[in-house]
């Protein structure tokens, strides 16, 4: 009944908007015809369900509901310059490891927007980011339950060639509700080559940007007098000249005492610089970042990934191989970090000594992250500035990753990719486990594909992670058989053979299969899932160990 009335009201809004924008003179019948014949509906659907079995060996708890599921459906209707959409989400109850705030069903996302020549307006929910996101980014990662979208109004306006302005106001999503804080902001971006005729034909392309965000949250704290309005500003530049590119952004935030920073009144700042050079067969990226007290939320009392207004990208390689990606991945430290990264890619041509018949690709990556330097002021009872920090010094090491990857095709049937990584992982800080030692690990991975013919192929992964700390050594083997273009079958075992406790030397086996056709895909798997940290798009979620049957359905239309 609830859904029924929802759809009816959605239809009324749809019709009302369409009629309004098509022009009042048109008769309703024509409007309806237009809705039917010229509009388009696109969307997608996903359902994940797991049947849980108790498995005391791996620490998989009994789940009272036995079956848990997450699902959503997105519908977006577009008709010319008009668009509207809804999303229905369902968590009955949410899969283990998902934030607990997701419980029940409901419509969480709805918007309507229209675009005219120079202006575009969106009301309802929207996702937006200014520059690199240092002061503002609302974003969704459905697979992890991360969603801090806005509910409010967004206006985009292009007043002159090369110039675009974006204004936003709204509240942010927190599970099935909205946070109490109000977020308002303005961004201006100027593409010089379009705006200044003298630069129209210049080989150097320059984009300048400036943005400001202000959040409002009432002060109901009995201990401190807190700023109810907190402002943040950022400036950026992006220059491309031939094969060179430089992208830099600096952000500053006024004092913003919060649970994250221990209610200190120190302002925050962040700097992000990325430079790259690339030509055919060669690419180099150098990046540096420093963020100091830049946690920025629309509710100062929140933690985890909740109600974050901004985004501080991690400057580490985003690995995809299981052991490398889910045992010791780095998560950005919002309170302060200094990070550097260098990434090199080189292609040895076909016919060269190392390239052989088919060529060979080599990638090399180094990333480090340290705490910022801090000198405590011990001013808790006076100014509460917390600390001072020297820009040119670094504090404790949080993370280091030195890795290399070689991709080579040996023959028409065989190709491989080989990875080595050396990791240093400060588990104490990154996972908040005081007293645990820093983890040093060496990881080696071979990924070899054998192609029987155009349709049939077998991919094998063998991975080793060697460490003296934490749970000791791990090995993983995966065999994935695919029958293109519709089927795949895979078996996998992860074995913690190096665990000091012989009883914890556990096999985590898993078998899965999948079928896909058109925009539809179904995956079924059975087995054990090791506790780990799953990251997508730079957001990570800790997932507990589980055992059972997992089903996933996705569909795009």
């Amino acid at each position, binding site marked *: 009944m609830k859904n029924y009335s929802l759809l*009816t009201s959605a239809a009324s809004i749809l019709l009302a908007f369409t009629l309004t924008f098509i022009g009042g003179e048109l008769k309703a019948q024509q409007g309806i015809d237009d809705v039917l014949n010229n509009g388009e509906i696109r969307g997608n659907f996903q359902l994940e369900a797991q049947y849980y079995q108790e498995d005391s060996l791996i620490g998989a708890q009994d789940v009272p509901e036995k079956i848990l599921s997450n699902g959503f459906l997105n519908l977006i209707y577009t008709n010319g310059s008009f668009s509207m959409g809804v999303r229905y989400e369902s968590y009955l109850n949410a899969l283990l490891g998902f934030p607990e705030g997701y419980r029940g069903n409901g419509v969480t996302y709805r918007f309507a927007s229209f675009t005219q020549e120079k202006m575009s307006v969106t009301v309802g929910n929207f996702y937006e980011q200014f520059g690199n996101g240092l002061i503002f980014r609302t974003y969704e990662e459905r697979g992890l339950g991360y969603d801090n979208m806005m509910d409010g109004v967004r206006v985009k306006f292009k007043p002159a060639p090369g110039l675009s302005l974006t204004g936003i106001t709204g509240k942010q999503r927190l599970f099935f509700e909205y946070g109490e804080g109000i977020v308002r902001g303005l961004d201006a971006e100027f593409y010089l080559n379009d705006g200044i005729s003298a630069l129209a034909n210049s080989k150097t392309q320059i*984009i300048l940007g400036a943005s400001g965000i202000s959040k409002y949250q009432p002060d109901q704290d009995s201990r401190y007098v807190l700023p109810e309005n907190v402002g943040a500003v950022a400036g950026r530049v992006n220059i491309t000249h031939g094969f060179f590119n430089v992208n830099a952004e600096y952000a500053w935030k006024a004092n913003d005492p919060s649970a994250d920073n221990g209610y200190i009144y120190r302002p925050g700042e962040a700097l992000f610089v990325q430079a790259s050079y690339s*030509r055919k067969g060669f*690419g180099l990226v150098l990046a540096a970042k420093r963020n100091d007290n830049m946690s920025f939320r629309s509710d100062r009392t929140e933690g985890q990934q909740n109600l974050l207004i901004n985004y501080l*990208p991690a400057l580490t390689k985003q690995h995809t191989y299981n052991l490398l990606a889910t045992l010791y991945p780095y998560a950005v430290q919002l309170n302060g970090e200094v990070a550097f990264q260098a990434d090199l890619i080189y292609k040895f041509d076909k016919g060269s000594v190392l390239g052989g018949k088919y060529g060979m690709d080599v990638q090399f990556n180094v990333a480090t992250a340290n705490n910022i330097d801090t000198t405590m002021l011990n001013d808790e009872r006076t100014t509460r500035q917390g600390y001072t920090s020297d820009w040119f010094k670094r504090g404790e090491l949080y993370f280091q990753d030195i890795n290399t990857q070689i991709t080579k095709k040996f023959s028409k049937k065989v190709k491989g990719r080989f990875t080595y990584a050396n990791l240093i992982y400060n588990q104490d800080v990154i996972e908040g486990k005081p007293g645990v030692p820093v983890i040093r690990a060496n990881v080696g991975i071979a990924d070899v594909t054998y192609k029987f013919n155009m349709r049939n*192929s077998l991919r094998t992964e063998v991975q080793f992670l060697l460490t003296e700390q934490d749970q000791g050594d791990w090995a993983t083997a995966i065999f994935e058989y695919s029958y293109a*273009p519709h089927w795949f079958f895979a078996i996998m075992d992860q074995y913690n053979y190096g665990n000091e406790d012989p009883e914890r030397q556990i096999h985590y086996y898993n078998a899965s299969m999948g079928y896909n056709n058109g925009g539809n895909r179904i995956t079924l798997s059975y087995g054990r899932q090791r506790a780990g940290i799953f990251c997508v*798009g730079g957001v990570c979620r800790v997932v507990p160990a589980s055992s059972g049957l997992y089903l996933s359905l996705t569909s795009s239309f």
Partner: protein
Amino acid sequence: MTLRLNLLIVLFLSFSALSFAQNNEIPAVDVKKIDGTTFNTGDIENDGKPIIINFWATWCSPCKRELNNIAEMYEEWVEETGVKLIALSIDDARNMGKVAPYVNGKGWEYEVYIDPNGDFKRALGVNNVPHTFLVDGNGKIVWQHNSYSEGDEYELFELVKKLSEGESID
């Protein structure tokens, strides 16, 4: 009451009419070129020849396998059918800067755009990457495929050939 009933009928019709009312045009949203400037996806075109739109990311292994495999044959594909492949990266600020060096480093000849805010991804109903769309000579999306397995590219090329010869694909 009658209004409500009408609306219900409208709704019913619009849903039941979906399959044939769909124009399947490429939605027009702003994405970024690899030099950071803005590009509107409504301007995607290939002179009446087929277009492949492939969503990928620098952190997605199957995506890279797919695009690297196609890269080996791309020249022949273009020669034979005039097809154009648009590689749409969904990388965000963390990895956006790596897109151009990766594309150039691998020597890809594709047209590459970045969708850091996920606007184009949402407009096309993409759940996860890799996700491939096939657009015919009239600019209509006629086929899609989610995920990648070794060898999928052969089916894709068969479909591209059909489109380039003006046949319909079902």
